[in-house]
């Protein structure tokens, strides 16, 4: 009977959990956490980004537990994040100090500092590589060694390859050492040795210097945190950006696509997309307390900060054409920026985010992509999947209540009909 389905819940859940545990082990195969982290870095990035928690090892663990379900892994990490105290706020990160592994501009061919194509699938053929079927740890190590030797020779031919001239070409520093131990050097090395590249100027700064970008005052307001503050509309831009950055990757992409396809404000030009490591620093925790006026203490203690590490991010600045009113009342065209930044390597999401950032700042609200409630409420993976899946819960009480209303309305309608029929007959007899 339908009623029985919800009773005996305890036993049903226990049995279901055993089945779930069985699903995870039934093949008899096991993959190490480290292997997940090393072989699926893009998936790890996506999970960390949507969870807004930088923790590669935990992301890999969550993926293992979730049997590869990204949605579930994000769920696990987000719930874990809820239990963590967050006593410090980092200093604002400056993306122009990023150590870029990749940096491209769709706006200018020659950009100051040069384009860095880096590792990208953009110009690869999406053909399944059947050779990977035969790949083993040994063949991977062999291939790795071989590639290093080839590059070393190329560098030496080009007069490079000296210690201070090392330049990485992949995610890890290319160490030209004969002791070839994959475990040892895949650890926590920085993306680059760093010093050599230094800061790369922002393309947007060039546009700004040319007077081609809309001018804004620098805004140093403490950013709002959607996970620590209530969501109240209209939201500050910092909160919008945060919600987009931790939004469902495919959800943000779908809405960003709608924004450029016709349900939004048009087609941007990617002024700059950069991917690389940025450094995180926090102010001296006691220093900040000496002074109640926040800004002053920030200035006063600028010298004393702690470097806590570096994380990889993807940053996008998209340029949109806008119409502005001139002082004389006439109109002119200029450019404005849409901004996107996501944790790890997530280029499509970062671009889509920059589109939505621009759309959401617009005054006119013709399209749903410009409506912050529409966009922000629905891109969050935990909320969307949670509410969609809650439809699986029993709704017997509410349905019974609805049933009662519908029956009452139907009865009333039938009564009316029979009254009307009686009325008709009365008419005839008259």
């Amino acid at each position, binding site marked *: *009977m*339908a*009623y029985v389905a*919800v*009773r*005996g*819940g*305890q036993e*049903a*859940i226990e049995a279901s959990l055993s089945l779930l545990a069985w699903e995870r082990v039934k093949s008899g195969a096991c993959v190490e956490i480290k292997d997940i982290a090393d072989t699926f870095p893009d998936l790890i990035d996506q999970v960390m980004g949507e969870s807004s928690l930088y923790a590669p090892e935990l992301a890999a663990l969550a993926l293992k537990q979730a049997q590869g379900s990204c949605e579930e892994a994000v*769920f*696990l990490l*987000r*719930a*874990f*994040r*809820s*239990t*963590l*105290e*967050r006593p410090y706020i980092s200093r604002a990160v400056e993306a122009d100090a990023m150590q870029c592994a990749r940096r491209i501009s769709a706006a200018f061919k020659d950009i100051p500092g040069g384009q860095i194509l880096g590792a990208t699938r953009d110009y690869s053929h999406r053909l399944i590589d059947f050779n990977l079927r035969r790949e083993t740890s040994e063949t991977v190590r062999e291939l790795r060694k071989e590639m290093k030797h080839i590059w070393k020779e190329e560098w030496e031919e080009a007069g490079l390859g000296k210690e201070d001239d090392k330049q990485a070409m992949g995610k890890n520093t290319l160490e030209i050492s004969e002791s070839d131990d994959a475990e040892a050097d895949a650890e926590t090395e920085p993306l680059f040795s760093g010093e050599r590249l230094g800061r790369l100027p922002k393309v947007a700064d060039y546009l700004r210097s040319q007077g081609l970008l809309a001018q804004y005052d620098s805004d140093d307001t403490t950013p709002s*945190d*959607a*996970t*620590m*503050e*209530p*969501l*109240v*509309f*209209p939201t500050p831009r910092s909160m919008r950006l945060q919600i987009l950055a931790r939004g469902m990757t495919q959800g943000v992409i779908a809405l960003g696509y709608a924004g450029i396809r016709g349900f939004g404000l048009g087609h941007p030009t990617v002024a700059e997309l950069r991917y690389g490591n940025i450094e995180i620093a926090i102010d001296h925790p006691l220093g900040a307390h000496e002074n109640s006026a926040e800004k002053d203490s920030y200035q006063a203690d600028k010298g004393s900060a702690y470097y806590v590490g570096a994380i990889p991010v993807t940053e996008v600045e998209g340029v949109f054409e806008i119409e502005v009113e001139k002082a004389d009342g006439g109109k002119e065209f200029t450019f404005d920026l849409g901004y996107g930044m996501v944790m790890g390597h997530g280029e499509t999401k970062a671009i889509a985010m920059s589109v939505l950032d621009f759309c959401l700042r617009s005054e006119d609200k013709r399209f749903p992509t410009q*409506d912050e*409630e529409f966009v922000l*409420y629905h891109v969050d993976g*935990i*909320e969307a*999947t*949670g*509410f969609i*899946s*809650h439809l699986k*819960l*029993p*709704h*017997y*009480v*509410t349905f*019974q*209540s*609805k*049933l*009662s*209303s*519908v*029956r*009452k*309305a139907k009865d*009333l*309608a039938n009564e*009316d009909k029979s009254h009307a029929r009686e009325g008709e007959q009365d008419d005839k007899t008259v």
Partner: protein
Amino acid sequence: MTKQYNFAFFDEASKREIRRAIIKGIAVPGYQVPFASREMPIGRGWGTGGLQITLAIIGKRDVLKVIDQGCDESVNAVNIKKLIHATTDVEITEETKRASIIQSRHRIPEHPLEENQIMVLQVPTPEPLRHFEPREAATRVLHAQADYTGAWLNLFDQIVCFGTTTTGADHPVKVNQRYVMAPSPIPRFDNLKLHQSPNLTLFGAGREKKIYAVPPYTTVEPLDFKDHPFAVEDFRGKQCTICGASGVYLDETVDEESGKTLYRCNDTAFCTQQAALKGLI
């Protein structure tokens, strides 16, 4: 588990955030206090609002009852209970009158609640005006101005079209003569239990990030019209086939053999207790 979780799952800062919202919610009855809803180890839309409230208020000495759709053994109720128990070790009960905190989805128990009990209701959609106004910013203004024309028109519209209001569960109520409030999808039958109740009722909407409250001894009136008074679900002439109770909220089931419609108490703990009292089980 190698990672030990905090007592009641949350860190203390999360509890403070929820506690602050609860205090403001009690102080402004029926007003939806926005709060920084935390992510939970159960799904958003599966009772995270109620769960956050329960975890923020619960202590070692509490006795907890959790029901889903009137039933203590429903899968979701069991799941929520398991999580709370695992992180607090509190005593769990099915007996309504023994519980100090009752977390529920869609029902208020049949057994009348007392002053020392706290009712926590899980809310999927806290905004009673959402039917006709999808935007949060706009509904906030309506609440600020106490402009409830839309809510009344909505009911009026139903009467014009169907001759009766067609709200099912979640029939809007006015609290303390000020705020129109969604009582969560409790049946209309339970709406009346909120009025001047001796217990505190807390409402939590995790996904929509709102907490609100009805303090004890507070006026709660379902929206209705003089010529179309509020009516609860009609179970006249029907009684529970198990315990024989009438005047309670009943579930409709079908007897597979005879094809006849049968009724049973929706509140299973109440039903069991009644049946035991009558020596039926």
